[in-house]
């Protein structure tokens, strides 16, 4: 009995879907609108041609929205034999927040309401690394203050990311080069990932994000700094639009004390491998077994 019902249901659903697909294809020549939204597949599952089409659509929408015709949207794939890792020298960081604003400038974060992917924690030398005692709103005349040290935190690009585990729709995943990305088109905005992340690295667009036209960074990646819509989660992607083309992330290049390091873990001669061999390295909240690719170290 029940088997028969399921068969009938499946039949009806597939018949309905194929009719809709047929109608949409016949009426417009190319699939579009709500029918496509019902039938659509995840971006990464699409064929290369379809991806190209969607990128072109995104590009056009974005150009129209911001009134700029130099905006490009790419989906540069992960390079072979590359696993990214990040190093941050706590003995050098002075807490100047240049990285925070360079990140906003590069990654088209909303200016109002404000979203920062990097948060710099000020901690007292007498407490050591103690998140409960840290302060992100410090604002002295000059830094570093002799009694404090500074610990910038952004996405740790975990090898076992709790945010990916909890996502109910697989809108976030780990790329072959280790970057944890979000497909903003697939994200429901349920914010489960935000509560799962032990580093506070994910941020939610509560309202339509605003970036002035002249402040937009036109070189965008579909999972990176492409301006996000309202109601989705966003996070650091190691500047995916830069690093997959070989450039350093924006925060690395702006750091005035050179505390930020970046490289390929699979390359014996990379600066990351050198510092992991030669320096004292640790990760944040190691006991949670998230296995971050973000290494803090002390060069002196």
């Amino acid at each position, binding site marked *: 009995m029940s088997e028969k019902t399921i068969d009938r249901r499946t039949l009806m659903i597939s018949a309905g879907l194929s009719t809709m697909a047929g109608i949409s294809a016949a009426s417009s020549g190319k699939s579009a609108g709500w029918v496509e939204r019902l039938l659509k597949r995840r971006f990464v599952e699409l064929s290369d041609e379809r991806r190209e089409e969607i990128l072109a659509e995104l590009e056009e929408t974005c150009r129209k929205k911001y009134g700029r015709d130099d905006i490009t949207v790419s989906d540069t794939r992960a390079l072979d034999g590359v696993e990214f890792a990040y190093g941050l020298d706590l003995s050098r960081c002075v807490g100047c927040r240049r990285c925070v604003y360079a990140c906003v400038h590069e990654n088209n974060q909303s200016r109002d309401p404000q979203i920062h992917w990097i948060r710099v924690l000020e901690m007292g030398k007498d407490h050591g690394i103690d998140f409960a005692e840290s302060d992100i709103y410090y604002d002295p005349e000059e830094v570093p203050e002799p009694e404090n040290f500074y610990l910038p935190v952004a996405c740790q690009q975990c090898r076992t990311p709790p945010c990916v585990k909890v996502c109910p729709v697989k809108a976030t995943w780990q790329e072959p080069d280790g970057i944890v990305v979000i497909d903003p088109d697939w994200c429901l905005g349920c914010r489960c990932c935000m509560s799962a992340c032990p580093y506070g690295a994910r941020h939610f667009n509560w309202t339509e994000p605003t970036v002035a036209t002249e402040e937009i960074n036109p070189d965008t990646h579909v999972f990176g700094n492409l301006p996000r819509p309202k109601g989705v989660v966003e996070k650091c992607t190691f500047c995916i639009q830069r690093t997959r083309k070989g450039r350093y992330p924006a925060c690395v290049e702006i750091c005035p004390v050179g505390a930020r390091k970046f490289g390929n873990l699979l390359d014996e001669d990379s*600066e990351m491998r050198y510092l992991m061999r030669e320096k004292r390295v640790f990760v944040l909240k190691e006991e949670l077994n998230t296995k971050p690719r973000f290494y803090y170290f002390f060069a002196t």
Partner: protein
Amino acid sequence: MEKPIDPDPSPPDSDKLLPGSSSLAVLLVVFITVSFLVLFSIVRGGVGHVTESGGGSRAFGPTEVSGVDFEIELLPGIEDATSGPEDGNFLVPPPPWSESGFFPCSECHSEMEVNPERRELEEMHDDIELVHGPSDRWCLDCHNSDDRDVLRLVNGRLISFDESYLLCGQCHGTIFRDWRQGIHGRRQGYWNGGKSYLLCAHCHDPHAPAFHTIAPLPPPVRPQFLAHQAQGEIQEAAHE
């Protein structure tokens, strides 16, 4: 013989385990103090506690912060730069002071007689305060006496100012090693290719190398001050 019955037996010890009224009073006082402290700490975290000068009462964007250029142009020829080994072709921007009118030094010094005596400088370079290493450090330890446009290593080899890292590396060997590998200092360019370095002197004044404190960029906005464009929209919705 029968034992005489004690007319007034003292209460057994077990009675003392129950708290008397005085200990209840102590507990009550402790409870009230703790609840007061908890309440106080909650109130402290509220909106009213943040002063104007506390930071985070306004959101700043990257264009509103002064003195930092976020558009980083890579140096020309960066693709060919190499790094790592000691004799690498380290690409660096022009050394500090090279475009300030001081350089070339020979413009003045070629006509002057070399005075190797350690002395207080008075007429020129009197703004230089030497706070670097032992007190007997002197100009001609690093600057070459015969040709001032170059620097001199301890072994007598003359080097140009854009190779000054070799000079610093004579004493600061471990830092020099880290610098070559890209661990000490700031670099720009390609993680898998050419990159530009900075000379030691770009960040550390060789005459007084301690790193100076700098002004931080503004803190993030606190949630209670997160006024945003949807505020009107939300209020309208609340009125309906």
